[in-house]
């Protein structure tokens, strides 16, 4: 049977972008189904009834939801060009930090960018602490995955374009090169990987979007 791989996503979702990267890195052909979250399609509601969110991978008619779960599914289904190391401990380490990225790092960075004044000052403390943890993970490595991109790079990859967009919108430089030299270097080489470079959302569009979100938060005060 011919493989049918569909990715339900939005133009800007960083979680969905992880899946685009994984599929491209593994050379898997797929069809993109673009969603408008203001008007969710029957396909999305049927494929992810629990969360009604993107991304959803639909493989030969079977849906898989939650981006980190999808990444592992892709890794286990298409074994060429592995994204995870063989060693169980190294795998555990990748999973731990991917979880940290989603549960702690991203929310703390997000809070910095939707806050104003004193609240933003306060929000910086945990964000910088979390960034420091991640900085340490790059010690002696080119990518989080070692010599090559791995699952953890894809999980943290939202930092590569998202942070610079948020920095531009707020005028606040979060990842300063002298404070986070390894992370700064990683952002550059990660963004330069061809499959990553060709997949990003249009920068100007992202800037408009996040400017609008930040303005909306400021207005609610």
């Amino acid at each position: 049977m011919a493989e049918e791989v569909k990715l339900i996503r939005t133009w800007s979702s960083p979680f969905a972008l992880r899946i685009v990267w994984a599929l491209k890195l593994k050379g898997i052909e797929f069809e993109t189904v673009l969603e408008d979250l203001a008007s969710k399609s029957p396909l999305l509601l049927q494929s992810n009834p629990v969360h009604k969110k993107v991304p959803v991978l639909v493989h030969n008619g079977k849906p898989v939801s939650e981006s980190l779960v999808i990444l592992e599914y892709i890794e286990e289904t298409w074994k060429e060009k592995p994204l995870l190391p063989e060693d169980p401990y190294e795998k555990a380490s990748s999973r731990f930090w991917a979880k940290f990225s989603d549960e702690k790092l991203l929310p703390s960075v997000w809070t910095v960018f939707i806050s104003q004044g004193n609240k933003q000052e306060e929000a910086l403390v945990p964000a910088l602490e979390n960034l420091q943890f991640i900085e340490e993970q790059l010690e002696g490595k080119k990518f989080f995955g070692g010599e090559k991109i791995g699952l953890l790079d894809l999980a943290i990859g939202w930092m590569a374009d998202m942070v610079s967009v948020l920095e531009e919108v707020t005028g606040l430089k979060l990842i300063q090169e002298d404070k986070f030299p390894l992370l700064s270097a990683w952002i550059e080489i990660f963004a330069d990987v061809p499959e990553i470079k060709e997949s990003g959302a249009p920068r100007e569009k992202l800037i408009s979007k996040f400017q609008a979100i930040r303005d909306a938060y400021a207005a609610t005060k």
Partner: protein
Amino acid sequence: MSGTRDLKLLGTKESLFTHRVVWALKLKGIEYEFIEVDLLNKSPLLLELNPVHKKVPVLVHAGKTICESLVILEYIDENWKDGYYPLLPQDPLAKAYARFWAKFVDEKFYQGATAAFFSTGENRAKGIESVAEALQVLEGEIQGKKFFGGETIGFLDIAVGWIAYWFQFVEEVGDFKVMNSTKYPSFDSWTKQFLQVSIIKENLPPPEAVRCVFVGFKNMAFQAKNAEN
């Protein structure tokens, strides 16, 4: 094969997350040393091994540290694989299913239960609603199955397992009631079958110990709130 000296589990005797790891290790028949940790006065050892979260459980295997209970479960499953009791299924789609639902329980159900227990007013009501919604979904998923893992317990049963035992005390001490054997008959049936599995039955903390810990949490939260005001 690794002996007890090589494998340590830091946890507490009442911790529901610690028990996930205990059950996994016992199902696989792996020997380990249990190190009881005082969570109110966190030891330098815990802070050194889990600087990010400062929580239990922490697994230390031949000097290598693994944190986060679900990550630990997958590590155990992959490290002790051939010839051992399997936790996750082989099929990638079935695996994805187990991982998805474990995450769902840790997010929607657990966070809802935490809000119901600790919060007041609207946040508490939202928490209770969240738990009820999560239960409804789980009811649908367990229908027609003996265990989430099929005929025998697996990764997802272990992940959901705390609801079969700890949750009644959360409700009791938190003074709310969502669990209902009439509304969620299949889930209720699963909880009873799960608690009958000998490894589980033999590895549960005594009710008074769990109550005591939860009462302690409630008191601490109450004191913290008063200190704020």
